[in-house]
């Protein structure tokens, strides 16, 4: 897959009507912005630029820094792609060319047609539109929406909305590794002939389990039920091909793979019935409301195209980190439960995510200890959630929900990051257990 190319002529001459002026941000905003300049201590130099990363940023599954290629594309497109792409004058045509080129690039990487790709304001918005739009179009086929128990909250919240509007939601459980069984989907569909749409994520965001999407897609196709796959955890991380997956709808999120925040990808395969659940808007094939963020979309396409060239070499490197971490954890920390299948076999697990739970440990206290050691990771424990409920993924797996950590690696990750974590984790767990009077239990 080649790199994203700006359409010929677009970046050669910039359109500047009027006099450009050097402006600074308003003082109150400027006061909060860090000084720009060469790397200072505490900043790591990566890709020859200063990026403010803590000693070990290991939360790349939450979000990952903007890819340098996406940054270049974003800056170019801010200058060239600012106009309304629906307008027919020169500036508008230029923005339209950029938007079209971005759509072609994304479609090419994902194995889709350009007419099937729309850009939304987030991965969350893409999941909402995908699920609710399909349920709306297939209202006459039935009111049942089938979802796996370990979907991202964006999918589950959309399903809840459908339920509140009079629909029914059927949830498919998972095994101890977080994997949904295609036979369970088949059984649910046979029990609920009035199923409008089903959803199964491509891989789980908390434990890295790859789901049997192709098998479920085949089973659904035989029954004429469309499948949505939320691929936010996989797109730009491992190869994702819509045709190979066999899903009818696919969603993804740019900030998860080095694109900018605020861009989601919504793919609706030709022939899939879909009706806009929101007020009408003709933009993005009539699937997404509002003025498109052309510069961010261009940066998204640039990120995805360059990621497609990087992931083959990157995956084994990151899988090496995750396997080393999974091997060392039980040696270094007592009563640690490894979660998910691990990244050794790409057919069942992602190369960049490791999840585990430490018995008798409060997740929040552990995050605090690690943060003090300069390590950024995330947790599915209840004390770290706004709702004070444990992660529905961990509950569905029957895993220990407290003391939970998710470590996720990215293109910036190094051996030193892993070593810093391996150094910091055992004393952090020990300290939290001692404070709770749980040492030696």
């Amino acid at each position, binding site marked *: 897959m080649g790199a994203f190319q700006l359409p010929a002529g677009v970046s050669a001459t910039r359109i500047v009507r009027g006099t450009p002026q050097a402006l600074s941000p308003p003082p109150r905003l400027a006061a909060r912005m860090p000084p720009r300049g060469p790397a200072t201590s505490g900043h790591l130099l990566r890709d020859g630029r200063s990026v403010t990363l803590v000693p070990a940023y290991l939360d790349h599954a939450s979000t990952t820094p903007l890819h340098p290629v996406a940054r270049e594309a974003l800056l170019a497109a801010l200058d060239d792609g600012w106009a309304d792409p629906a307008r027919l004058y020169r500036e508008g045509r230029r923005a339209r060319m950029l938007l079209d080129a971005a759509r072609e690039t994304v479609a090419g990487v994902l194995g889709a047609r350009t007419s099937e790709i729309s850009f939304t304001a987030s991965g969350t918005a893409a999941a909402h539109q995908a699920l609710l739009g399909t349920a709306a179009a297939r209202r006459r086929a039935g009111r049942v929406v089938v979802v796996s128990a370990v979907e991202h909250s964006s999918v589950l919240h959309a399903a809840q909305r459908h339920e509140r509007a009079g629909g029914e939601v059927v949830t498919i459980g998972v095994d101890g590794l977080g994997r949904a069984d295609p036979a369970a989907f088949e059984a649910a569909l046979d029990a609920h002939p009035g199923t409008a749409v089903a959803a199964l994520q491509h891989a789980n965001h908390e434990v890295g389990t790859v789901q049997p999407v192709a098998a479920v897609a085949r089973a659904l196709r035989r029954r004429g039920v469309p499948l949505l796959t939320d691929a936010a955890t996989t797109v730009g991380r491992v190869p994702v091909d819509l045709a190979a997956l066999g899903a009818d709808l696919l969603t993804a999120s740019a900030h998860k793979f080095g694109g900018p925040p605020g861009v989601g990808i919504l793919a609706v395969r030709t022939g899939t019935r879909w009706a806009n659940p929101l007020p009408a808007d003709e933009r993005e094939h009539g699937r997404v409301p509002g003025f498109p963020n052309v510069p961010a979309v261009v940066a998204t396409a640039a990120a995805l195209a360059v990621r497609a060239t990087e992931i083959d070499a990157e995956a084994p490197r990151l899988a090496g980190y995750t396997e080393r971490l999974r091997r060392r954890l039980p040696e270094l920390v007592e*009563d640690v*439960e490894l979660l998910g299948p691990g990244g050794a076999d790409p057919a069942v697990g992602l190369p960049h995510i490791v999840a585990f*739970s430490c*018995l*008798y*440990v*409060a997740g929040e206290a552990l995050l605090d200890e690690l943060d003090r050691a300069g390590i950024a990771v995330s947790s599915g*424990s*209840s*004390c770290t959630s706004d709702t*004070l*409920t*444990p992660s529905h993924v*961990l*509950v569905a797996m*029957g*895993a*220990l*929900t*407290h*003391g939970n950590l998710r470590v996720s690696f990215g293109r910036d990750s190094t051996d030193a990051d892993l070593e810093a974590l391996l150094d910091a984790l055992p004393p952090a767990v020990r300290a939290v257990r001692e404070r*709770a*009077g*749980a040492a030696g*239990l």
Partner: protein
Amino acid sequence: MNDGSPAAVVDARGRRCPIPIIELARRIGDVDVGEIIELLADDPAAAADVAAWCRMRGHDLLTAAPGAGPGSYLVRRLG
């Protein structure tokens, strides 16, 4: 064996995870092997974590026992 009534009760209501599990672990030694200990806990993580703890420590969570239900967990000590 016994009649199925708990030999000890741990009241961890109002305590947040992982404290109910820590309390349970501290007190499991108070009952003999084969006896039952009851944990009272209203933390939303307790149901998942009691089950996981029993699995990790080799005890038996009596989900079907009379008295088992929301907020009450009956655990038979097995080792």
